[in-house]
């Protein structure tokens, strides 16, 4: 089926070339990082994780979000989603690939990455994160590929796939839960020390993932003869609406706990992000933008008339995607590290090189995503005709 | 099949690349390097283990030394002759072999291996900077 990714028009090849160029630029800068060390980023002794890990965290969410089309189809027998499950699975593959690349890019000694497998450490959440992410990647490759191949050949997929499909559903939840556990089990980091962190991550994941999927469906409808379907998009939009509402609700819960209890360790990080602390407030405009984007997203997806207008829905999806990215990407990591354990403020601002390397990783992910979607769409077009 | 020409060219290019070291050297082998011993190493006559063993297995030995010192906090190595050594690359090995360029590097370059021990371990503990 891979050959389907090679047959495309001028626009398709133009887009792919653009992505390859961005990947190339990012890779060249990465070589520089490899040579110099992580000092080319804005990271510091106090903020030891930054833009890379932030994007990793966000993309684990997007990957987990793919399950929102798989679950209704296989568990609730919601037939309409049968048409788009493959898109959810392929989105998961591309996202997990980006996640793994972001982790690799963030390592100080990437050549030693295999030490994680050579010396498996069961008490380390990072070990489990590597296990669940790779597991999820393989599950989705096996399931997505075989189901699509069966569809192309006009047969029912192999029966042994069924248990794997069922397994992939809780597995999707697990990847984001384990990722949240990376943060929320650390003593002395008040911002992350909240039992609601995994649920919060999942709620933003189930908003951002399907929002991206809706955007993909709208694009696919424009550039191909395969229509993912109006009902499908509307159902996804309802999922996004619920998830983003829950996400904002969870966030408000955090605000209540921190500010009613008045415990400085918990308040200070939120203050730093939203109003600034001791004169430092680089993230204030970003955090308010994120909050406003999410509120706009709620309004546009909850009200039926705006949700049903696909143009408006697209705007809402972009707003939600950006809003959750700022919230979980920028805010979650920088906010957790500032103020530092010694209550010092040393602001983290990503460096330009760091941002370009991250863009390169995103471009790599979208390259894979486009190729996979191209294959899926070509198969759909083929079987229809 | 009408791809015969393509396949043959492909195979030829593949062979050319794979056999590069052979045709580049025209069948001759590069001469093996001579390692030089410092007067101190010569005077000692015997290394931690026999010369043959050290020549072939020093990397395994160093690996064991490293893990013993760092991970098991055991620092003394007693060789089969009953002689004791402080297991330290910088302070024991390079104390005698204080000529890294003529001793370590020559062979490593010949074998095209690039151990990065010296990114951290200091080359010659006796020399003043």
């Amino acid at each position, binding site marked *: 089926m891979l050959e389907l990714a090679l047959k495309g028009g001028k626009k398709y090849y133009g887009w792919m070339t653009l992505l390859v160029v961005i990947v190339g630029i990012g890779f060249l800068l990465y070589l520089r990082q490899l040579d110099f060390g992580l000092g080319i980023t804005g990271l510091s002794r106090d903020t030891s994780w930054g833009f890379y890990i932030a994007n990793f965290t966000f993309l684990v969410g997007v990957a987990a979000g793919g399950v929102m089309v798989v679950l209704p189809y296989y568990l609730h027998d919601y037939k309409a989603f049968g048409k788009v499950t493959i898109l959810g699975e392929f989105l998961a593959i591309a996202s997990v690939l980006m996640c793994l690349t972001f982790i690799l890019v963030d390592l100080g*000694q990437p050549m*030693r990455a295999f030490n*994680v497998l050579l010396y498996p450490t069961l008490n380390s959440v990072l070990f489990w994160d590597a296990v669940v992410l790779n597991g999820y990647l393989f599950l989705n490759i096996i399931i997505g590929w075989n189901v699509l191949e069966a569809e192309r050949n006009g047969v029912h997929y192999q029966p042994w796939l069924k248990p794997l499909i069922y397994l992939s559903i809780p597995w999707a939840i697990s990847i984001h839960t384990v990722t949240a556990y990376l943060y929320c089990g650390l003593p002395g980091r008040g911002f992350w020390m909240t039992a609601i962190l995994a649920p919060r991550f999942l709620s933003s994941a189930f908003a951002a993932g399907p929002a991206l999927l809706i955007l993909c469906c709208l694009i696919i409808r424009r550039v191909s003869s395969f229509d993912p379907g109006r009902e499908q998009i509307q159902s996804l939009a309802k999922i996004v609406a619920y998830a983003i509402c829950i996400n904002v609700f969870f966030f408000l819960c955090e605000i209540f706990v921190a500010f009613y209890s008045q415990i400085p360790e918990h308040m200070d990080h939120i203050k730093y992000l939203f109003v600034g602390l001791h004169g430092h407030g680089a993230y204030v405009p970003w955090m308010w933008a994120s909050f406003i984007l999410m509120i706009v997203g709620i309004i546009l997806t909850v009200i039926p008339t705006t949700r049903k207008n696909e143009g408006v829905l697209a705007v809402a999806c972009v707003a939600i995607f950006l809003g959750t990215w700022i919230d979980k990407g920028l805010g979650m990591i920088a906010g957790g590290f500032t103020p530092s354990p010694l209550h010092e403020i040393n602001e983290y601002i990503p460096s330009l090189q760091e941002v370009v390397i991250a863009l390169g990783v995103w471009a790599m992910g979208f390259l894979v995503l486009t190729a996979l979607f191209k294959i899926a769409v070509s198969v759909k077009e083929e079987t229809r005709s | 099949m009408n791809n015969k020409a393509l396949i043959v060219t492909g195979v030829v290019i593949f062979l050319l690349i794979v056999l590069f070291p052979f045709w580049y050297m025209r069948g001759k082998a590069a001469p093996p390097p001579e390692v030089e011993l410092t007067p101190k190493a010569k005077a000692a006559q015997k290394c931690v283990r026999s010369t043959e063993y050290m020549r072939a297995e020093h990397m395994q030995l160093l690996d064991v030394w490293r893990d013993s010192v760092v991970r098991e906090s055991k620092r003394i190595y007693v060789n089969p002759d009953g002689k004791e050594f402080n297991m330290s690359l910088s302070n024991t090995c390079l104390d005698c072999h204080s000529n890294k360029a003529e001793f370590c590097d020559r062979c490593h370059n010949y074998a095209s291996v690039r151990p990065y021990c010296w990114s951290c371990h200091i080359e010659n503990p006796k020399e003043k900077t």
Partner: protein
Amino acid sequence: MDSSRRRILQLLGISALALTTRPVLDAFAKEQQATGADVIIKEGDKVLKARQWAMVIDTRKLHSEAELEPLIEACHTIHNVPKLLNKNHEIKWLWGTHYHNAFPGKAARFIAEEVEQRPFLVLCNHCENPPCVRACPTKATWKRDNDGIVFMDFHRCIGCRFCMAACPFGARSFNYRDPRPFIQETNKKFPTRMKGVVEKCNFCAERLAVGQIPACVEVSKGALAFGDLYDPKSEVRELIRTHFTIRRKQTLGTEPCVYYIV
């Protein structure tokens, strides 16, 4: 695909696997030889031992940054700790800070002026229940069973910095770039680090192994004491028994082993 071709490919794959296992097994066998029966690997005779090393810092005896300087200097020089000018890339094993930074939860609104001005020496606490060790995915940092030191294997560290996020004391530093050009005077007896690994205070394990106490304690003129926390007769226990001591962020349950007399 016809089945005979598939069969041949399978056979080729299996034989390739079988061929590659041999060198791996050989490598293991050779490592056995290095430790074989006729060779003994042991501790030195002079090694200082304890169930859990601990430190008591009498902050009353250290009045100013200038008085901390020789201690920090001693530590950083013998361990080849670089002096980086960019604050982001800074590496510190032992440093001085204010009371309200060392004890953020314990800073009262009004506090003895003299304490507010006094510098507090901070370093890795070698916790009895260290969160950094829980976090490390490769066992590159672990708690030694023979003396309780939270140790690091710079050979194994992959530079993921999970330990830095896990440490509630900010005790760990990361090599954001090659540290070598920034080491003013190299101690030839101790290795430097390379870029991309985490480092921190090691309670001078290399000195304890040859019967010496940690360098900072040695030059502290009695302001720092070092000893076994579980030996009731040790100097540190004596000080803890006879003085009121506090520890950093005790409520987190990490059981720090550095005690402060205020």
